[in-house]
Each structure stands twice: as structure tokens, then as C-alpha cells.
């Protein structure tokens, strides 16, 4: 558990450092994620310690948003004033996103299927 956490914190620190010095528009943890991903691809395996920490985090991911999301108390008047705009924007956006990405995926993999059929016919 500790060994995995040390690795995660190491990559997080590396990411923060790169974010400060090289890529200020990217959040440090995202850079850390990418470096760790590259590291995993190079090594071709996930150490058990890392797996343990990752499983722990993914199980309680939601808990980690609670402190920030509780800041909603500071925005209550604004949210009340624009409640309908927010609800419609969120619902509309989710529905359209699902439809758009589903159709795009379906259309393109249909092409992929047809291409592979053509290849096998030739």
C-alpha cells in the first residue's frame, strides 16, 4: 500500500513540477497521469502495490469531491436564480452528447466493418 502510494505521489510531484516549469495550462495531476501511463506502457505491467492503491482510490473516488462540491453553499443564490438554465443545459448536453458520440461511433465502425469485409473479399 505504502509502496504504491509513494509511486503515485512521485508521479504526481513530477507532474506538478512539469506543470510549473513547462506546461502551465495543464493541471499537474493530469501530466502525472500521462507520465505514469507511459511508464506502464514501457514496463508492460502494473506492480501489485500500484494496483492496490489504484483500486482503493477508484472505490472511494466520489468521497474526494465532497469538500470542493460542498462549496455549493457559496453559490446558492446564483444557482437558484439560474436553476432552469442549469437544468436544461445539463440535461440537454448529456442527451446530445450520448446521441452524437453513439452515432459517430456507429457510423465509423460500420465503415471499419465494411473495410475489413472488402479486404477479406479481395
Amino acid at each position, binding site marked *: 500500500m505504502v509502496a504504491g502510494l509513494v509511486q503515485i505521489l512521485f508521479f504526481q510531484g513530477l507532474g506538478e513540477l512539469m506543470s510549473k516549469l513547462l506546461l502551465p495550462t495543464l493541471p499537474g495531476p*493530469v501530466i502525472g497521469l500521462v507520465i505514469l*501511463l507511459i511508464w506502464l506502457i514501457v514496463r508492460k505491467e502494473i506492480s501489485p502495490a500500484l494496483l492496490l492503491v489504484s483500486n482503493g482510490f477508484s472505490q472511494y473516488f466520489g468521497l474526494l469531491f465532497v469538500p470542493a462540491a*460542498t*462549496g*455549493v453553499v457559496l453559490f446558492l443564490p446564483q444557482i437558484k436564480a439560474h436553476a432552469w438554465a442549469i437544468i*436544461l*443545459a445539463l*440535461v440537454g448536453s448529456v442527451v446530445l452528447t450520448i446521441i452524437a*458520440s453513439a452515432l*459517430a461511433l456507429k457510423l465509423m465502425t460500420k465503415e471499419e466493418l465494411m473495410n475489413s469485409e472488402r479486404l477479406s473479399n479481395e
Partner: protein
Amino acid sequence: MNERHSIVEIWVYLSGSPLLALFITLAAYQLGLFLYQKSKQNALVNPVAIAVILVASFIQLIEMPYSTYFEGAQFIHFLLGSATVSLAIPIYRGLSSLHQRWGPLLISLMIGGLTSILSAVGIAKLFGADQTIIGALFPKSVTAPIAMGIAERIGVSPTLTAIFAVLTGILGAILAPSILNLLGMKNWWQRGFTIGIAAHGIGTSRAFSVNQEAGAYASLAMGLHGIIGAILIPILYHLMNR
């Protein structure tokens, strides 16, 4: 010293130390998880939403300023960055199931991500939402921890972004199965990937509970969406807010 006085002293001590904030956060989330499991994992009974409502009501009841609460709860908040880094592991596992679907997956991811931002911002503008709310809608389509990082970088409220991201996940997890059925999508990997794009973390855990392949593709979509979003959303934001 009378008894009442000492209770007040203990209360003053407690509300000044991180203990109270940590305790109410963990206890509220625990209760949320309990209710979620009791409801047979109904997406509407979301543990994060329940915890936020409970904690927010509680700190308002005892008149604790949010800044005081956050001072204590920041120890939990700090782990968000580490948890974001650990997303590399599910993405890595998803990569092995990719085969040769890179192109279609990336393109539909871009189309989905763009649709999500433009439609949310467009609808909010149409109904007269103010700039704070519209700004926070830009990063909401990616998974909450990354969305909050992006929000900080582009200078919009990470709090509103986190709330919009969580609500998006809840809505997506509820609506996606019936929309995908209507569109006649039957492949598990296609369903999973679409849910990962549109409903990130909450959708992904739902996808895993239905089918392993759907779950792997959903977490891959969620992770890639987060990485690509972190790169492109600030650019799009600055283009649209010059």
C-alpha cells in the same frame, strides 16, 4: 467551571480542528454509500450528492463558514490529485482491449466532447445564465477531478464545475441505457465507450456493473476524454471568451 461551559469549550476546540470537518465528510459519505447500496445501486441515490447535501446542510445549521470547513476537509481534497494520477491504471488496462479501433474511438470522443461543451454553453446562454455558470460548464464534460484542475487553470469556479460534472455523471448514467437502446446500439464495447464519454466516473461504474467489456471501454473513454479535455478545453475556452 459548570458543565455547560465545558461543552462550549469542547465545541470550540472541535470546530477549530480538522477533526470535525473530516468526521462529517466521511460520515456523510458513509451514509450516502449505505443508502446507495440499500437502493440496489440506483443512480439517483448518488453517494456524492447525498454527502454534499448533508455536509452543506450541517455546516449551515451550525453556522460554520465554508472556509473553516474546507480548512479541515482539505486533507481529503488533497488526495484528489493523487487519485487523478492513479487513473493511469484503468486507462492502461483499457488500452489492451483496444485492438485497432483507435481512429473511430478518438474521433467519436472528440465529437462527443465538443457536442457536450457547445450544447451546454449554448443552452445556458440561451436561457440567460450568467458568466460564472457558463464558464463552469466548459470543463464539466470530463471526469470531476480533471474537470476541477481545468477549472482552476482557466479561472472558473472549481466548485460549480465539480457539481456540474457530478450531475452530468448522474444524468448520463440514468439516461444512457434507454437512449442507446433507441439508437439500436447493441455492442457492449460501443455502449461502454459512449457512456464513458458522456457520463464519466458514475457512468463507468454502472457500465462495469453490467458488463466487463463495457466497463473497460467506459474507463478508457473517461480517461482519454480527461487527458484530451485538459489539453483542448483551455484552448476552446480562450477562443470563445476573447
